[in-house]
Every structure is written in C-alpha cells, then in structure tokens.
C-alpha cells in the first residue's frame, strides 16, 4: 500500500501507548498472600518449567491448585514454558520452585512486560494491520484510521499491559481466523481459530459464528460436491489442531478430564462477584443464586444463551456473508456474555465496565488517558457525530419495515443520538462518583452494582441492535437500490 509510512507511524503510536501504560502498576502488586494475575502468570512459568507435563493440571504438594492453578488450555501452558526458559536464562530466581512465590522486582516487571509486548507484536498487531488492509471498498486513509482506533482500544491495553494478561495472543489468533475465513482461506482461518480456542477457552464465545459461517459456505458450494470436500477438510483441520495442542494430555482420559474440569469449573455458581450480565443484574431484584437449585441455573443459562443467539446463527448459515459473519461474532459474544454461566468481568474487555477492577490496580490515569485518546481518535477519524442518519446506522431497512405499521416512526436516528448522549453522560457521572465519593454504609457495593447494571443495559441494547442489523440486512435490499 502506498501510505506504508503512515501505517508504521500508527503502529508505533500503538506500541508507545502500550509501553507507557505498562510502566504503571500491575494487579496484586505488593499485596500478599495471593497477589494477582501477574503472580498467576509468573507462577505458571514456575510450574510448567519445574514440573513434568502430567502434573501441570493436578493438585500435588508441588502444585497447589488453590494458589493460582492453571485454568487455561494447554497453549497458554506452552507459552508460559517458553517464557520460563527465557526467564531461567536471565535470572533463575524468578521461577525457582516454591521459593519464588510473590517474587517482585523492577527487572522482573520489565521482563514480564516485555513478554506481553513481544507476544502482541508478533501476533495481534500484524493481524490488525492485515485485517484493515484487506477491507474492501474503503480508502487507504480510512484503513489507517481503523488501525489507529483498534490499536488504541483502551480495554485491551489496560488489561494486558496494566492489570497483566495475555489476551492479545488469543484475540490475535481469533483475528487471524476471521481474516482467513473472510478472505476464503478457510483452512488457515480455522486453524488459527483453533489455536485461539486452545489458548483461552473464552474464545468459545466466537466459535458458533465460525461454525455457522463455514457450514453455510459448505452448503452454498453444494453438499454433494465441493461443499462436502470442504466440510471434510475443515473437520480434519480442526481435529488435527486440537490433537496437536492436547497431545501430552490425550494419553489418559483422567488427564483430559482434569484439564476440562480446570477449564470449565461448573462446580461454581451462576456468577461470581459483580458482572454485567443478566443474572447479576436480575439478582438486584431477585436473589436467584439462592432461590434456584444449581443444575436449574445451568439449564436456564444454557437455554437463554442458545435462544438469544439462534436467529443470527441460522441466518448466517443460510446466507453466509463476510459482513453478516462479523456482526454475528459480536452478537454471539454478547449473548454468551449476558446469559452464560460463571462469566468473569474481564471476558467482555469493555472498559467502562472494568472500572472498579482498574481502580483497585491503581490504573486510573492510564484509563482516563487511553479512553480519551480512543474517543478522540474515533471522533476525528470517523466523524461519528456527523454520520447519524438512518442509512449510516445501517437501520434503514428496519425502519422502513416498521414504518409499514407505524407511519410516524421517522425519528429513529434522533432517538439513537440522544441515547448515545445519555449513555456517555451516565458513564462519566458513574466514573466520577466511583472515583471521588464513598458509598453509603448500608450499600457498600452500590457503585459497582450500578456500573454493572448500566453496562448490562448497554449490552442488551447492543445485542438487540446488532440482531436487528443482521436480520434486516438482505441481498434483496441491495437489489432494490440497483433497480431504482
């Protein structure tokens, strides 16, 4: 592309913001005995380096699962092992068995932050750049603006470089998957997505759209000919990649089961702590966690999740398109987040919601700065305040259908503008209140619950919005334009 230097500059800006955020504190800094996610990752390096593979997921005297036991799939474990080899080369004290619990030093922090940056640089950032370059029908300038906005997204930066996690690896792999599948490199795309799932099981949120899209493609090619061949090839790719990742754990069923038990802790309840999903918000009014029995909770969450994502998935299978695929990814992820079982706040990576978590880590300044930067970048690149007509909100066909029954429904875009304003004001107010005021004594969790509730409302709105776009987006609409 001709403006490679602008793209380089945008990537450099993204990297600079990431590294400067990483200069701040991490989760659980200086807070014994459990510390936080930073210590968890360091501990996993210690475990994977010092213990044989068979013992990684089992409780033993050397591996106390209560103290940050491994609860991500094997690819995370292999990544930790790789980092551990480097750590051993620099300073073996960092990963010495037992004695390195709670190890904290400037040099170690530098090492850990560097591992995140390198993983990001190798996997996530190239995916973003390539994804933007492969988008069709938009100018080079818009592509570069896209990359800037994606790279400045505060949620990912703050969790990965502030709180400390490796989300960029799994998200990067998932993005490679989306890229591959959208550009018709189905096998590579599905391989990349399998790697993503094997890195963090959270990516299963995105698995249904992948499945439906690829199935739709097979149907389109005809199940009697090329479609069937494609289906077989995809199945083989998926199975092969899973076997490759789980090889050391496939030998005994007990191993496999134990890993699965660690990945999906169904023994825990419907939700933990304050999470912006339906169950937590509902429990403000009705304490469902105490009323409903355990297996009923599992069944009901499964049903709601399934029902909420069914329409979009069926549409995607019957009419596979790249655009529909992308929207379905969002709506399915939202459905899973809102309705499923034992969801963690970090699963949504949406910054407004992670406020209490970030405040605990002392990351208020980076939060404010990166959110403002993201907002400014989006506003200036995409003139979001100007493009608010119905067509630009992709709601034209929907409002046309509604107007058949309600002829006065012409003010949809106005409603959306006002909703946006209200939402921004509410979020800013809530942030200010959470930071400056102390909650009343009778309701100590008032602010976190309010944040959850407001966020949940937002997510519900978006779920409905995206589903509307998916369902009302049809090729018929495009043909009409041509005729007129």
């Amino acid at each position, binding site marked *: 592309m001709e403006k490679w230097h602008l793209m380089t500059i945008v990537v450099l800006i993204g*990297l*600079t913001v990431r590294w400067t955020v990483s200069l701040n504190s991490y989760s659980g800094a200086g807070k014994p005995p459990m510390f936080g996610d930073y210590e968890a990752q360091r501990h996993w390096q210690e475990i994977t380096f010092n213990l044989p593979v068979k013992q990684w997921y089992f409780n033993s005297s050397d591996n106390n699962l209560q103290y940050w036991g491994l609860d991500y799939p094997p690819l995370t474990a292999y990544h930790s092992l790789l980092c551990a080899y480097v750590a051993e080369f620099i300073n073996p004290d960092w990963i010495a068995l037992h004695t390195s619990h709670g190890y904290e030093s400037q040099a170690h922090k530098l090492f850990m932050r560097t591992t995140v940056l390198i993983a990001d640089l190798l996997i996530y950032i190239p995916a973003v750049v390539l994804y933007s370059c492969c988008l069709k029908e938009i100018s080079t300038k818009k592509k570069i603006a896209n990359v800037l906005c994606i790279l400045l997204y505060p949620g990912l930066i703050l969790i990965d470089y502030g709180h400390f996690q490796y989300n960029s690896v799994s998200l990067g792999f998932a993005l490679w998957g989306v890229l591959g599948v959208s550009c018709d490199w189905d096998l590579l795309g599905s391989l990349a997505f399998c790697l993503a799932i094997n890195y963090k099981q959270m990516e299963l949120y995105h698995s249904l759209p992948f499945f439906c899209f690829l199935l739709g493609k097979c149907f389109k090619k005809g199940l009697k000919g090329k479609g069937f061949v494609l289906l077989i090839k995809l199945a083989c790719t998926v199975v092969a990649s899973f076997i490759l990742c789980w090889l050391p754990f496939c030998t005994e069923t007990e191993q496999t089961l134990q890993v699965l038990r660690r990945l999906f802790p169904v023994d825990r309840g419907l939700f933990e702590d304050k999470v912006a999903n339906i169950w937590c918000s509902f429990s403000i009014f009705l304490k469902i966690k105490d009323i409903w029995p355990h297996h009923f909770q599992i069944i009901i969450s499964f049903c709601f999740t399934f029902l909420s994502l069914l329409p979009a998935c069926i549409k995607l299978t019957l009419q596979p398109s790249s655009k529909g695929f992308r929207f379905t990814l969002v709506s399915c992820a939202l459905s899973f987040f809102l309705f499923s079982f034992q969801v963690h706040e970090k699963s949504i990576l949406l910054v407004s919601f992670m406020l209490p978590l970030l405040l605990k880590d002392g990351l208020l300044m980076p939060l404010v700065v990166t959110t403002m*930067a993201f907002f*400014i970048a989006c506003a*200036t690149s995409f003139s979001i*305040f*100007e493009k608010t007509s119905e067509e630009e909100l992709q709601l034209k066909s929907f409002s046309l259908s509604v107007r058949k029954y309600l002829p006065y429904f012409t003010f949809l875009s106005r409603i959306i503008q006002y909703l946006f304003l209200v939402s921004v004001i509410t979020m800013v107010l809530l942030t200010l209140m959470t930071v400056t005021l102390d909650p009343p004594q009778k309701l100590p969790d008032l602010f976190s619950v309010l944040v959850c509730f407001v966020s949940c409302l937002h997510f519900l709105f978006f779920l409905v919005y995206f589903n509307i776009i998916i369902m009302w987006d049809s090729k018929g609409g495009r043909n009409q334009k041509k005729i007129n």
Partner: protein
Amino acid sequence: MAALRLTMGGGNWFSALALGVTLLKCLLIPTYHSTDFEVHRNWLAITHSLPVSQWYYEATSEWTLDYPPFFAWFEYALSHVAKYFDQEMLNVRNLNYSSTRTLLFQRFSVILTDALFVYAVHECCKCIDGKKAGKELTEKPKFILSVLLLWNFGLLIVDHIHFQYNGFLFGLMLLSIARLFQKRHMEGAFLFAVLLHFKHIYLYVAPAYGTYLLRSYCFTANKPDGSVRWNSFSFVRLLSLGLIVFLVSALSLGPFLAMNQLPQVLSRLFPFKRGLCHAYWAPNFWALYNTLDKVLSVLGLELKLLDSNKIPKASMTSGLVQQFQHTVLPSVTPLATLICTLIAILPSVFCLWFKPQGPRGFLRCLILCALSSFLFGWHVHEKAILLAVLPMSLLSVGKAGDASIFLILTTTGHYSLFPLLFTAPELPIKILLMLLFTIYSISSLKTLFRFTSPASVCYFFCLYWILSFKTSRLYVCCEGP
C-alpha cells in the same frame, strides 16, 4: 449535539493534535526523571519559604538557583498551587523529596504550561503560506509544521521525561518569532526580553534579534539595491525598543539591584567554574577538541614523547563537572570560547545587516547563532540543540533545501539526546518515539517536496554521528593512563 459536533468536527485537526500529544504527555508521568526534578522542587521550596533577599544566597541544596529572576517568580507562583498538593515539598530541608503528589504536581505543571507552546505553534502556522499545498490535510505545510513542533521528540523527552520547563520557554521564543513575521516588532522584542529574563541561555540568539531589529525596524526604508538608507533611521523606534528592554530588565533585576545583590545574581547565572564540557559531553567542537587532545596524549605516551608524571590525573568523562587542563593542546578559557563563538556568528550577522531578507533572513541568522553557540560555547548542554532544531522546523516546510538540512539536523540532534535517558524501562520509549518522529519528518517532508535523494541524508547522518558522538564513546572505552 450540534455544539459537540462543532468542536469535534472535521476541521479541527489542530486541537486533535494538541490534545493527542497532551494525552501522551500524561502517559509519560510515571517515567524516570533526572536530578532536574529535585532542582525544580528545591526552587519551589526556596521561593516559597524564603524571602526574596535570600533566594540567590540559599545553598542548603547543591542545586542553587541559577536562572534569572522571572523564572524564580514563576516558581514562586507555582509554589502557591503546590501547597495544595503536598506541603512537604516546599520545605527547603526536604532534599530529594518526591512523593506521588509531588510528582503529579510537577509533571502536570509542565504539561499545563505547555499551553503557551501550543498557542505559539498556532501563531507560527499562521505565518506559513500554503501555496504549495496538496489537497489532502496531511500534506499541507501547516499540518506538517504543527506535528513537527507539537510532537517534537527532543522536547517530549527533555520536558516530560528528563524533566524541565522548556515547553513554555520555547513557546515564548516561537511567539516572538511569529510576531516578527507578522511585523509586530515591538511585541516580538518585548517577548524576547521577557524570555531572556526567564532563561538566559537565549542570550545565544540575542545578536540575531538585535541586528534584525536595528536593521529592519529602526531603519524604516532601504535603498533600491537593498543596502542601508542612513537617513531613514527612526530614533523613536530605537528609543521605544530600548525602553522596552530597559523596563523588562528593571522589573527583573531591579529588586536585586536595590538590595546590592547584582554581583551574586550574576555569579549564579554565569558559573564559569563549571568547566568546558558538561558531565555528558554535548556533541560540539570542544568534544572533538578533547578527543583529539586525548588521542594525542595517548600517542605521545606510547611514543615516549610525553612524561606520564606531568599529565594531570583528572579525566574528562568521569561524570563530574569540574575544571581541568588539556595535556597536549592548549587549554581553553571562557574568553577563547566567546571569541570562537563570535567569529562563527559574524558571517550570518553581517548577512543580516548588509542583505536583509525580511523575517526569513532573521530566522536563518537566529538558527546559525544558536548552532554556533552550541558548537563553540562554554559548558554547553546537549539539550541546547533544541534551540536550533525548533526554529529550523519553521524553515523546513518552506523550501526543499531547508527541509533536507532540517532532517539531518533534527535526526542527529535527537539521537544525541539519547544518553539523557539511560534507564531500561525508558529504552523502548525513546526508540519508539525517535522512530515515530524521524519516520514522520522524513516521509512528510519528502511528500511535500518530492525528494529524490535520501542517500545524502544517510551520508551526512553517518558522518556526523561517527565524528561527534561515537568518538566520545570510544574515548570512554579507552580511558587514559
């Protein structure tokens, strides 16, 4: 909604740039800061806790007040805000006090005073004509100039990491240049006079100002061939300029003159006991001179031409600031450096007098004065290169020739600032920001002028780098006997 649309709408790229760099500066708050942080905290304490008569005598801390009185008053004003952040930082005896609130206050004071710099850049953009402009925003000279100034790498790392207050000072200088471009000479003179009393390093460029104002403002007309028309001399204008300078100086030095403290103030402002070179050598002529001296002394010892007992033991790069002598070549005195500097600036000043080319000519003379003083001055800091780089940005978007010189100057100048940040966590930041600025400056100027020879840039870069920077490093490696 409409109001929001107006503020964020497409045309306001300048605000977006300014806001963006301000947010970056906020992200730089937790980075490493040098002893200059303690210097300014100490000055806050001195000006807040002690009466004016003690300001230039206070010596509890080694970082005594060595800027002119206006800066001291500036610190005094800041200290009144500081007391709401952390009262303890205003205690003179609290040496090296750096609580979180102190850090926040100091960093934010730099970020907020940069507002003057942003305003000055805005005024400078008005002085650039966009006739060569392409239709795209990113190709307009105003846009490029704004980025080159607002996002200047040197200013970012010196002010917001290393810690200094150069932002608003350079703002004053750029504003005075802009006023001279806009033919508001009195304002320009006033701003420069004020600037001098904030930081006297700007004396380096005073000859340019003096000559230009005398030649192009006091003489109101030229002869057709461009030379001086003596009978157009305006005594009124000269008098008004003199009055401005006198009033500003009176305001600044007056109180100290009244207290008979002027010699003490001057001795603090011009500490010639500090030695020819700073602890970390600025890549100037004397660095090469010292290197040559060292090389010759090593050679002399090897060839038994020199007696090792007669060589002074003090080394020049041990990080200490002190006076010492050269071994082979003659020792350099402050007077010698002054004479060298004056000889170096003479050609440009003569040009400004005999062939004035309006404000552009003045700007060239200013840059040359800054560069000459950097090369030949006494106890020059490497940060002084910014004095030449920032005004050069104004010329760089005008002509292609200036742009290529600017690229060489700015790349090598910024690279020479690297040793200022020597800690491991700041290493990625300085590399990333340097790459950012260098890639942007080269690509945007190249697009503006359609360059075809990047080779010359590379050549000069390598030459300069090897000569001035690498030699000082090699010298450190093969330390003397």
